[in-house]
Each structure stands twice: as C-alpha cells, then as structure tokens.
C-alpha cells in the first residue's frame, strides 16, 4: 500500500465524509469515527514526510495517466511539511471537539458537522498535495464550501453574516484564480504545475502571463487574508464554533500561503516573480502594514477571540515578510512560522474554547479573575501568549530569530528594529488579557465556574507544551523548513 500513500492522504477523509451520513443517529459514534480517520490521515502524512525527507519527490499519477495528461499528485518536502501541519492539527483538535461541539451544535446535526469538517480537511490536504493547477481550484472550493457551513454553525447570529461575507470574498478570490489559470493555459496549453514551470519561460514576456500572475496573486491573497484583503477574517474567526476556529486559524490561511509560494517560486520562478516583477517591493510594505495595523487594532478589542483573530492577520504579515525577502533564509523563516504559528494559535484558541465552554463567551469583562477558577486553562493561554510574543525558549522565538537573521542578511536592518517593536505590541495585547484574568477580582455576580473538563485541557496542554518543545528542540521544524526553502528556491 506504501505506493498509494499520496492518494490515501486525501481519499481517506473524502471516503469517510459520505459515510458519516449513515451515522446521523449516533453522534458519539460519528465523533469516534472522525477521530480515527483524522489520526489515520496524520499517520499517512508523517509517513509521507519521512519518505521525502531526503529530498525525494513522489509523483502519483491518478488514473494511471502520466502527467500532464492526467492529474498528478506531487509530494516534496514543502508539501509534505504543510500536509503534516494540516493533518496534525486536525488529529489534535478531534479529541477536543467532542465536548466542545456537543455544547455548541444541535445533536441531530453533529454527524453532518463532522462530515463538513472532514470535507474541509480533505480539501485543504488536496490543495497541498496536488500538482495540477485546476485541481487546486476544485479542492479550494471543497474546503471553502465546507468551511462556510462550519463557520455559520456559531451560536451568535453574526456568524451567519460573517460566513456570507467570507463566501463572497472567497469566491471572488477563487474566480480570480480561475481567470489566472485560464490565461496560463491559453499561453502554454497545460495545467500541470511542473509542466507549466517548464513551459512558462518561453512566453513569460507576454502581457497575458503578467496578467495571469496578477490575478493569481490577488486571488490567493484574498484567501490568505493578506492585508488589506483580510476583512473577512476577524469576524469569521470570532463567531465560528471554538473547534472550527482552532482548525481554520491553524490551517486554512496556511494552505493559501502554500499555494502562493508554489506559484511564486515553483511555477513562475523566483527570478520572474521577484526579479522581473517587483513582487518584493509590493509584498514588503503590505507585510509591514499588515503586521502593524492589525496588531494595533488587536490591542483595542474587548473580545479576546477577536483580538487573536486580528493577531492572526498580523502573523500572516510575518510570513509574507519572510517571503518578500526572496532569500532562502527568509523562506526558511516563513515555512517555520507556518508551523510554529499553527501550534501556538491553535493552543491559544483552544484555551479560549475551554473558557467559552465554561462561561459562554470571551469578552474581557466576563473573564475578570477567571484564572482563579480555571488555573490550568489560563496557564496554557499564557504559554501560548509567550510563544506568540516570541519569548526565548518558545517556538515563537525561533521564527522571530530566523526572520531577524533573514532581515539582517538582506541588509534591511530597519526591519529588524521593526520586528522588535512589533513584538512589543503583542506584549501589550496579551498582557491586557493576563492582567484581567489574573489580577482583577471575580465580579460578585459572576457565575461560579470550575476548571474545564480534562478532554478539553489535554489537547490544549499538548499544544502548549509543543510550543515550548519546538522552542528548545528545533531539529524537526527547522530541518523541514530549511529543506523546503531550498526546494522552493530551486524551482520545480
């Protein structure tokens, strides 16, 4: 079966999603089944990464038709690394989901909910693994449609409108992508990414290819919430059910970033994207603004979930900053941040989900003194917060360190100063939460709450500890990230 691993990676969740419709009457069975599938997918992803660790590339031709005639799955270190992030987060979030989803979703809809979750999961995995431009579009839409429904399941009615806005923005994004793919097909006659990379240099001086590049860049930027195209994200993350926020914040934008990297570096090539077209000069200001403004906005939020959603936009800024250096070191920092931010943000949102589970909301006013009642949850939150800020010995520090190195390496020392300053902004908003939760008295009329159940705490702590572990033991993420960066710089 080992040669079928790439297909299994996507087919497992795809196969399980329809099967869940048979389990509508047994919600807990549906949960157990989904968890099993999520862990099996994780196992497949780990095996794939192990296979390509040395730099090998696995190509899997669907239907036995060799590319470019058929659709190819293509696994190298870059995609295997992203696959591992997606599958890992969904495997960890499933044990957490049982209690959280039971509280937030009606019992007769739980099986459908998990079915949509698996579809979103499979869609994201499919984007990361495929080697075909049009297939990226199709799987983008699978994951998008499932996520719209998942977000709309939030209990607040504002979840509906934020999901609708996400649908409009997301669809504009994917339609732009479709236009770009059409333009590229017109000039090259192929849809296979590797084949495109080979045939593009011939025609790259045409206006059509430049327009294709622009449309793909804008379309994908909409999906990855690049400032100023991020407007759909804060509301969507704030009002979605806790488990969905954890999953999407750690994976959805990351996959879009992966697609951007693929097109910029592998398909068009770094020389075209950053040499002929001034993408570095476009991306860098956007990244800097995208770090600064959402961080400032985050400071003034009263809902902690919303605060962290804005912080997510800022973190996308860090990743884009690394990309805009267009050096191997910068790319290493970006790939590393994909991984570290996924863990950190997932831990933070999980802690918040536990608070939602106990007191029903994450407004700062309601969280006063909560650390006394829920010490473990808040301790995990603080660890996540430290990693978000980039304190030494946490995963966040490692990325900041590599970004700093990359900035100095490229001679942008003002950016190094800026990075330190922007970390201070993170200190401010995290401190606001800590101050309220630890040093305020619990209001007299506040409901008495206890610590969150173990099923919520364990996954939260796993991720919190992971964000410390990967701050000390860096061989896995840094090794994978630097290998991935080298591959990306080298073209297809």
């Amino acid at each position, binding site marked *: 079966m080992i040669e*079928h691993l790439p*297909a299994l990676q996507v*087919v497992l969740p*795809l*196969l399980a*999603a*329809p*099967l869940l*419709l*048979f389990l*509508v009457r047994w919600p807990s069975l549906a949960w157990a089944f989904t968890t099993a599938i999520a862990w099996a997918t994780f196992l497949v992803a780990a095996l794939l990464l192990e296979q390509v660790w040395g730099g090998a590339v696995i190509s*899997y*031709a*669907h*239907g*036995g038709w060799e590319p470019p005639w058929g659709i190819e799955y293509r696994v190298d270190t870059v995609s295997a690394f992203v696959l591992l992030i997606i599958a890992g987060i969904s495997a960890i979030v499933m044990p957490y989901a049982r209690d959280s989803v039971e509280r937030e979703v009606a019992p007769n809809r739980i099986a459908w909910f998990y079915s949509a979750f698996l579809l979103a999961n499979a869609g994201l995995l499919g984007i990361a693994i495929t080697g075909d431009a049009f297939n990226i579009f199709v799987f983008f839409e699978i994951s998008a449609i499932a996520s719209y429904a998942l977000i709309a399941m939030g209990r607040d009615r504002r979840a509906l409108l934020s999901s609708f806005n996400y649908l409009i923005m997301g669809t504009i994004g994917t339609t732009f992508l479709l236009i770009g793919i059409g333009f590229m097909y017109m000039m090259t006659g192929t849809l296979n990414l590797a084949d495109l990379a080979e045939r593009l240099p011939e025609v790259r001086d045409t206006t059509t290819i430049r327009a294709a590049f622009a449309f793909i860049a804008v379309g994908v930027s909409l999906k990855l919430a690049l400032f100023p195209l991020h407007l759909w994200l804060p509301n969507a993350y704030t009002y979605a059910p806790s488990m969905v926020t954890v999953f999407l914040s750690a994976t959805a934008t990351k996959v879009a970033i992966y697609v951007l990297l693929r097109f910029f570096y592998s398909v068009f090539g770094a020389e075209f994207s950053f040499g002929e077209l001034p993408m570095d000069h476009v991306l860098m200001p956007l990244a800097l603004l995208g770090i600064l403004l959402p961080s400032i906005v985050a400071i003034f939020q009263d809902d902690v979930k919303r605060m962290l959603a804005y912080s997510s936009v800022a973190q996308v800024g860090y990743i884009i900053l690394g990309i805009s250096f267009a050096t191997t070191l910068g790319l290493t920092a970006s790939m590393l941040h994909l991984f570290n931010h996924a863990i950190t943000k997932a831990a933070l949102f999980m802690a918040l989900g536990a608070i939602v589970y106990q007191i029903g909301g994450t407004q700062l006013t309601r969280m006063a003194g909560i650390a006394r009642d829920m010490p473990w949850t808040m301790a995990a939150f603080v660890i996540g917060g430290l990693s978000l800020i980039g304190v030494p010995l946490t995963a966040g520090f490692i990325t900041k360190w590599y970004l700093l190195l990359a900035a100095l390496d490229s001679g942008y020392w003002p950016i190094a100063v800026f990075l330190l300053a922007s970390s201070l902004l993170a200190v401010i908003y995290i401190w606001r939460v800590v101050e309220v939760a630890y040093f305020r008295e619990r209001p007299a009329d506040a409901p008495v709450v206890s610590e969150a159940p173990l099923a919520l705490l364990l996954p939260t702590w796993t991720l919190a500890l992971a964000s410390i572990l990967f701050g000390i033991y860096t061989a896995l993420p840094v090794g994978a990230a630097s290998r991935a960066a080298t591959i990306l710089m080298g073209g297809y």
Partner: protein
Amino acid sequence: MSPHIVLRVGAKVLIPVILLFALYIQFHGEYSPGGGFQAGIIFAAALVLYTLIFGLDAVQRAVPPAAVHLLSACGALLYIGVGVWAMFAGGNFLEYKVLAADPHLGETMGIILIELGVGITVGAVVISLFYSFAGRTREQEN
C-alpha cells in the same frame, strides 16, 4: 392539493417521459452529449415538477428526505469505491484499465460506474436542496 385536472394528468404523462430521458442522458453519455451530472439534474427536475403539482408531502412520502441524504452519500461512495477497487486491482487510484482483462472494457465499465455515481449524488443533492428550501417555506407558513 391542486384541483387542476389538466395539470395532474399532464404531469402524470410527462414525468415518466422525463425520467426515461434522464436515464437516456445517463447511459448514452459516452456517445452523445450528456452524462451523470445532467441526468441527475433532469431526474431531480422531474421530482420538482411532481412537487409543484401534488405537494411536498406526497413527494416526501414517496421519496423520504433521509433516504435522499443516504443516496447522495452512496453516489459519492460509489465513485470513490471504483477508485479504491482499481487500487486493489493493482492500478493507481481511479485507473479503470485494470478493472477488466481488456483495457477498453475496463475503461468503459469504470466510466459507466462513476457516471452513475455522479448521477446519483447530483440528483439526490438537488432534491435534498429543494426539500430544505421548500421545507423552510412550509415551516414559516405555520
């Protein structure tokens, strides 16, 4: 219940023809335009027409929503199942050539089966969408 006898008789004559046409589109897709997707929609259209004239209750008695949901899952499972079958038969995912001794026969068989899967899922999903929207209308009226 609609009292219009012309509509009711007309529909009764028309619906079997539409269903037959859907089947034709489904299984003749290899030779002429058409295939599972279009057939599924035409099939669903026949049920929508039936609903318009005989009411939602009558249709849901004949084709209950729960069955429709399961059918939509079955179609997708059939498609993936053919792919997995090909894996076990020694080929790649969705490689129909290996399904039979003769590659042409295998390809044709695979295509007919997956088109059937497409048709079932599309038809069932469209009916299910229609039920969901129409069912809301009825709830609001009460």
